[in-house]
């Protein structure tokens, strides 16, 4: 059985008389990437602070790389790397990427020359191709570059676990994907276990395990691929219609090849299809049979975001569209 490398068991946190986390449990095994996802006030940053030993839970156990984060916080410093949400809270903007990394490395007693070597190596993995970029003051770098410097600083002491607070917040869509890909590379290259806190469901696609928090409770926890499998679909298509009513959606839902239907716009649906031969042709035929002709049909991936939205929609048991439709 693989070793649980990040583990929260029955964690309960109260701040100022208010319960922030209630019976929170999740884990990640060695070398995995764990995403802790939730909206504002869900308690994800508190989870991170609990994992870094900055906040003591009133109840529950927290283990990070085999260290009790509640009792042995000081031991955590050596096994844990941390990337804060805001780069300005973790980087000296007047220093270069190399200088920042070396400064933090010195805190761990890493000799200057070794620190520089490691910094260059990590920065190269993170896409810093030129020496000039590495020596530029961090304040003059772009948001995506700064985020990568922050990740480099978190990794400089070769931690076993890297925790990241909203690493993609404030970045453009393509930069978000870039950063997550870089994290994947780091995970593969160094075998470092990662915990990513994010409000962005997209993050889960890059992770081996996901915990979704809502108002201090874990509502979903597991492998995102398994959640995706639970949709019981092999294909997904985005259909656009000129006009779409609740009745039309019910007709689509009743088709035998369709497992789930998810509205993605006013006149657009994402339809999940079970494993069949020539799914696109079959889908169009089936739609025509019930009197529906889509304006466009586009093939799409089945993602954890789809699973999450489907689950949320089913839980709320609300009609697909507000009554005005």
């Amino acid at each position: 059985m693989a070793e649980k490398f990040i583990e929260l068991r029955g964690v309960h946190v109260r701040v100022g008389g208010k319960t922030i986390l209630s019976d929170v449990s999740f884990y990640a095994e060695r070398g995995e990437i764990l995403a802790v996802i939730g909206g504002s006030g869900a308690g994800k940053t508190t989870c991170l602070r609990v994992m870094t030993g900055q906040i003591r839970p009133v109840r529950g156990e927290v283990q990070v790389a085999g260290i009790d984060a509640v009792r042995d916080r000081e031991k955590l410093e050596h096994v844990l790397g941390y990337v804060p949400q805001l780069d300005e809270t973790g980087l000296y903007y007047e220093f270069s990427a190399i200088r920042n990394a070396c400064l933090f490395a010195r805190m761990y007693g890493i000799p200057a020359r070794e620190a520089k070597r490691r910094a260059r190596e990590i920065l190269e993995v993170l896409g810093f191709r030129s020496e000039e970029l590495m020596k530029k003051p961090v304040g003059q770098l772009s948001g995506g570059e700064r985020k990568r410097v922050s990740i480099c600083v978190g990794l400089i002491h070769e931690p076993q676990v890297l925790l990241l607070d909203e690493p993609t917040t404030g970045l453009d869509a393509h930069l978000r994907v870039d950063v997550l890909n870089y994290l994947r590379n780091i995970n593969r290259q160094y075998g470092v276990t990662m915990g990513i806190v994010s409000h962005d469901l997209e993050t889960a696609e890059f992770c081996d395990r996901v915990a979704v928090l809502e108002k201090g409770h874990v509502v979903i926890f597991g492998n995102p691929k398994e959640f995706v499998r639970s949709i019981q679909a092999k294909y997904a298509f985005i259909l656009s219609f000129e006009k779409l009513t609740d009745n039309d959606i019910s007709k689509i839902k009743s088709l035998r090849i369709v497992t789930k239907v998810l509205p993605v716009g006013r006149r657009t649906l994402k339809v999940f299809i079970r494993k069949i031969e020539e799914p696109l042709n079959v889908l169009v035929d089936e739609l025509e049979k019930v009197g529906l002709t889509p304006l466009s049909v586009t093939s799409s991936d089945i993602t954890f975001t789809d699973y999450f939205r489907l689950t949320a929609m089913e839980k709320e048991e609300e009609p697909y569209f507000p009554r005005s439709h």
Partner: protein
Amino acid sequence: MASINRLLGSITRIAALVRKELEGIIKDRMALIVLVLLPMIITFSLGAYQFRVLTIADYAKVAVINQDTSIGDPNYDFADEFFWELVEKANDSVCIVFPLNDENIANFLLWRGDIDAIIIIPFGFNSHLASNRDPEAPIPVPAYINVTLDGTDLENQGKVIDCLTSAIADFKIRFNFTKDEVIPVITAVMGPTEEQGIDLRVTVPLITPLLLIGGIMILTSQCIVGDVPLRRLLLTPASKSEAVLAKVLAYLITGIIQMVIIIGILSVVYHYQPSGSYVNLVLCLLCISLFGITLGVFISIISNSRLQANQYFIFAFLTLVVIELAVPVADVKNASPLHMAREAIINVASRGLPLYYAMPPMIGLLIYSLALLALSLAVFSMKRSVV
């Protein structure tokens, strides 16, 4: 009607904003302290003279050496009478007058700052005054009094001069001297020399600590609260105490640079030269700098924002200045770090005292600095910092 509505809307908004500001001030303890405590300190300081209880520290100490053995009026010993006249006037002028025999000891005490003036009644005082009592005498034969003042202390100089002039006036009235029969010859020692032009020996001991303390405090008061990535650094094995000590040491180096600039300008531009050694002056300035640094670091630790740190800085600096310049109570003044700094510079730069004698105010500053450092470490260790 529309314009009235607009006006009412504007008033409502202003009222809401005023309320918001007041709520902000009430919730901000520092703002309340500045609002209430600062005027209290200044007002009490200015009014304290009327209600003060004088202690020995407030009095100017005057040693009187009677060297006169000349023969004068058979009925009176004028030198003795003049001494008692000084004793009588002393209390009103906030002076203590006492006899001393040895001029060398008196000079030593004046140099060390233990006394503030020496009054020597020289040989011939009696005989000269006796000759003036002859109504046929055409012109008065002046009887001189040699007065040596501590030139580093303007406040006590004033007290001694006041005591001296009142004593001379009353003495002359009592013995019916109507002309310039008694003339004081006043010399201020350890004060500014003529070639220095301006009163550097008086101003340097005040301006230098103000510059050093104020200059370094304004930087250090931002050093923790303004160092946002420090919280991230504290997630590494670096401890809070290491961070604070590193700041203090770094700013001590900055303080040395400030020191070199100040001494350099004074020496090169104003040809200022300390009476004592430069080594002693540098040690003294280091103590002053250390106090400014530790006070600034403490301010930075207790502040929750840069703005708050600025408010604390202004509050602390003004308090130091007000105590030094406006509080007439010597015991309060003597406990003030700025006064200690001033005294320390007077001791090493104006009096040229060896380090052994100059130490007490420097030790006082070191005690303040260590206390502030300990307090800073304690507060910082208790302060919750999360990234």
